[in-house]
């Protein structure tokens, strides 16, 4: 069904996530199993409230499952401590958010350098790598601009550069085009396409079929369960 090109990166089995809202228990995920290999391009779709973001947070080690197994690059992350998860996020995962989430008082370059600070890299290496990555996403000219001096598409490019800069195993993007007009959205998807061609592993959450069609595999969620999982066709 998928092309099992590279090594297994993500392996979750029967993962559930419960939220306690006062009296009420919300079953955000009811038992999801998923395997993702290196250099896959995957879209997660589903109606609002189906658990896409919850699954994404889980995959990105921002959250731990209530029950179930989760192995990331062969390591069991379901039982990891906060700081261990922070290090995994820093080294292995690149996040792209719908609202860009750039630091408003820092330049594009400083924003991209941030994950490298947490990786403990020296200022010269940071500068060099951040510069190169910004050039790769086509922002070589805008490095010293603050976020409010950039267009939406440019901001998302900065965010993508920030996700890429530490050479993560996967890139997770939750509705990356949700705040962009359709033309800019297409440009961003083209950038993801390039990154995929270069060998990156990409997971995109989206509402839109048009966006999902850029991916090679689509996982559809409904009420916290996987409804379908297959190649784009």
């Amino acid at each position, binding site marked *: 069904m998928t092309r099992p090109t590279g090594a297994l990166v993500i392996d979750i089995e029967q993962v559930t996530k419960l939220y306690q809202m006062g009296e009420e228990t919300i079953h955000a995920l009811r038992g999801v199993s998923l395997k993702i290999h290196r250099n896959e391009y995957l879209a997660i779709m589903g109606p609002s409230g189906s658990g896409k973001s919850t699954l994404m947070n889980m995959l990105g080690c*921002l959250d731990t499952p209530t029950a179930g197994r989760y192995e990331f690059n062969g390591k069991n992350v379901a039982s990891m401590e906060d700081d261990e998860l*922070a290090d995994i996020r820093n*080294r292995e995962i690149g996040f792209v958010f719908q609202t860009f989430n750039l630091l408003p008082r820092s330049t594009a370059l400083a924003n991209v350098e941030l994950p490298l600070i*947490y990786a403990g890299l020296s200022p010269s290496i940071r500068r060099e790598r951040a510069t190169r990555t910004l050039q790769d996403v086509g922002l070589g000219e805008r490095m010293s601009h603050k976020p409010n001096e950039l267009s939406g598409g440019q901001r998302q490019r900065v965010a993508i550069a920030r996700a890429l800069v530490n050479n993560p195993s996967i890139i997770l993007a939750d509705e990356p085009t949700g705040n962009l007009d359709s033309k800019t959205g297409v440009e961003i998807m083209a950038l993801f396409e390039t990154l995929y061609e270069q060998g990156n592993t990409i997971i995109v959450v989206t509402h839109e079929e048009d966006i999902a069609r850029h991916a090679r595999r689509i996982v559809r969620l409904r009420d916290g369960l996987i409804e379908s999982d297959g190649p784009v066709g």
Partner: protein
Amino acid sequence: MKALLKRPANWIGFLLGILIWVFLPLGVAVGIYLAVWLYLWLFVLPSGKRLRYEFTESFRIAFAQIRANKMRSVLTALGVIIGIVAVTLMGTAIGGIDKGFSNSLAMLGEDILYVQKWPWGGVEDWWNYQNRPRITADIAEKLNQVIESTPNSTLEIAVPVAMRGSPVKNGEYKVNSVILGTTGEYSRISSVDLTEGRFFNETEANSGRPVCILGADVAEALFQGRSPLDQSVQVSGHPVTVIGVLAKQGSFLGLFSFDNQVFIPLEAFKKYLGLRRGVDVRVKVKDKNHLEESRDELEGATRRVRGQLPGERDNFSINEQQAFKAVLDPVKQGIALAGLFITGLSLFVGAIGIMNITFVSVKERTKEIGTRKALGARRRTILLQFLIEAVSICLIGGVAGLLLTYGACLGLQAAMPSFPIDFSINLVFISMLVSVVTGILSGFAPAWGAARLDPVVALRYE
């Protein structure tokens, strides 16, 4: 060698020597070891390097944040500013009093006891002192006889000094000064520092020759920079020849100038101004480290000279510079107490303000905290960041407070050069320490809350 080790003092010295030779290199080695490790950790090992980078990044963000919220930050720092101003002003005042005090004490003479009718420092039962017989000049003479006849006396010499305020004139120039009448032996109890001429000798003093030595300010006021030597001045209407000029000495606690004095022979003093008010007898001791002993000896000797019966209360007082300490201590304590109270209060208010502003900052930037966590910030990264922000505001307040105090000190010094103030470098360290501690204490609760935020919850925050 054997002979050397016989005496215990040599033994102790020997052991001490060995201990020093063992522990000094050991201490140095441990110090170097720790320094090397610190260096390796912060500059070579990844974990330490990361911490160092997080520190610099946090400071950068903190200052960007403060710059973006100038008004808010300044208002928040106000409490710290006031606190630091209070604590440094207090330190300056106390330091100034101490400095002025020890300078002034040196002028009074650390090795001088004063036999006088009244004790220094004031009394409540003044009527008990009022009727004491006055101290006459012959007591000094008799004391000297007692001192001479006492084997191993701890006292050296007694000298009578009469004192009275009176104008001194040179033609149209006139200055109110303090006239001191004394004997030629005065120069033995106090080092008389002269810029010109000489002090009067025994013969001149005993015969009451009309000669005088002028204090620096008196000479300046009466002669306007010309040399007063061999010139005549009028002391209470009597012509007196100037034979010497004293070097500048300064003032006692900024109140009472020593450069305002005019010395004349005691006999002349008696003639011009009279000795109705009696004299002080100043007694130099041999060893200022055994002042108590000397004081007891002097008390006994004076009682003998005065013919007091056993059991009778002393009808004189023995004063020493130490008495002033007792007078000043409550003043210093009062300043310290008031200063500490104001400092504590304003720092407390300031700390609450900073805690509040840090809570607001955490709230405003919840999403940023989530983002940072998503990018790999650990709990301590976030904790550090907000702590550093709180500490930075406090440090800015501390520096502002220090500058204010320093400016005030400079202004005061310019306006009143003789006023004793002492802005010591320790105050800088204390203020910085107080600021940092205030920042850490007030920033901790909000920073801890930020560090423990669930990244998912933080990212969802709008």
